[in-house]
């Protein structure tokens, strides 16, 4: 499963990243090298193996529906690159 530059473009779009030509070249090379390495997993027959997703042994770790104090608006906006009044501000969503 070789990764093409078009694949890199598509993945970059999904990940909201951009690369110049040289970076794209290098990224394509690196991804192919790594993916080529991970191909080794295909040596294993995992047909009847249950995927492992949950590392703990607990289930139903739930919170009671009781409010806890929120933070202040000032704290919420403390690190905001741009804000006005009580709102975060971002460039206008188009479309």
């Amino acid at each position: 499963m070789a990764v093409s530059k078009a694949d890199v473009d598509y993945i970059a779009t999904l990940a909201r990243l951009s690369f110049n030509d040289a970076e794209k070249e290098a990224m394509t090379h690196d991804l192919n090298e790594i993916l080529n390495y991970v191909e080794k997993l295909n040596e294993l027959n995992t047909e009847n193996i249950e995927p492992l997703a949950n590392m703990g042994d607990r289930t139903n770790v739930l919170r009671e529906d009781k409010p806890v104090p929120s933070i202040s608006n000032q704290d919420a906006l403390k690190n905001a690159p741009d804000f006005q009044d009580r709102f975060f501000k971002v460039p206008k969503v188009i479309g």
Partner: protein
Amino acid sequence: MEYELVVGLEVHCQLNTKTKAFCGCSTEFGAPANTNVCPVCLAMPGALPVLNKQVLESAIKLGLTTHCTIAPYSIMARKNYFYPDLPKGYQISQYEEPICSEGYIEFDLDGEKKRVRLVRIHMEEDAGKSIHDIGEETYIDANRCGVPLLEIVSYPDIRSTKEASAYLQKLRAIVRWLGISDGNMEEGSLRCDANVSVRPKGSEKFGTRTEIKNMNSFKSVENAIQYEMERQIEVLKSGGTIVQETRLWDADKFETRPMRSKEAAHDYRYFPEPDLVPIEVSDELLSLIKAELPEMPEVRATRFVSQYQIPEYDAKVITTDRLLADYYEEAAKVCGDPKATSNWIMGEVLRTLKEKAIEISAFPIEAKRLGVLISLVKQGVINGNTAKEVVFVKMLDEPTSPQDIVKRDGLAQVSDTSAIEKEIAEVLSASPTQLADYRSGKTKLFGYFVGETMKRMKGKANPQIINDILKRKLESV
């Protein structure tokens, strides 16, 4: 060629929990922007979600009520996409192994029973609010980020706009009955997307579908689907093909139009949410939640008919809303006259709710006060007219008990026979013409004498006693 409409609905139902799905922030509507927020719902680095128990229970309640299979093992998943009002860059949702699957909702339409099957119901979180219409930039309020939602996905079993609307109404009634959501479409606590396609009548194959978004009332759901159906038929009839796309309903222009989207394809990269543990629904938990389920409307209406001897129609009306049904039962219990209570609800109460455009929860007369009022009539303390036209009206404006109003305003019914007899005598002597006419056979004038007597007694006389005395007098002379 005749075409048939095929619709499946995806409904997002905002739950009315006190706190958000994954943090303890309040869900209260109308708080100042970005004040119901915390490190978790603002996606601060290092913050982690913890599932609200009430969200799980609400999902299971809706699943049980809609005849779904409740998954004994279920997991949360991340749905990855970027949007300014989605702080984490992913929405916590469910993908594989949702909490409920394969159920159905039944409703009556034009006297027939219709069943729409459900693919699944899953838990997820809401996004924040983007405000685009002030200034040159977009403003973000994260108060709604993380508010719990249930997504209810139907099979494409809907065949008309009326069915779509009836299905939604029924779903709304169910979530309200369960008390898990206020189900308000206009305020966005019930949101609906429709997958719409058409096919030649009799065909088994589905046509290409479009997804219609932005319908925020029952009427707009009907209108949007109707428009989209006609548009698709038009395209097909003129030899065109339907493009699979997402379209927005524009209620002002009364049309659907394709949504402009920069992203080529939706590639959400779902994967199991590693920050949350699996959900196991044991038989024990399931029976605990089952025991908490309220008696469903159909069952309750049937019980009302047999237990309280009220008409089936009244029972159905009263059980359209759980709080109304609760109200009825409480008032009936207080006064001990379920039949009279049902009449009051069907008459004065529902009329007032409609006039004031309010819900029973906001009705100023509590069930207990109404019950007392009805019993005052029953005991003969006041007559029915005084109760309806005077005491009830005053009770709407003040929290006073009906007894106190009656006492304060001197509204108690006069059952003193001698006083009534005296007034009747005066009425008869003041109306010689009418008396003569009555005696010559115009017995309809009986009502006239009753009315005159009542007028003289300021409406407070016991009507039964007036009747009795008047009858005796008119016949005896």
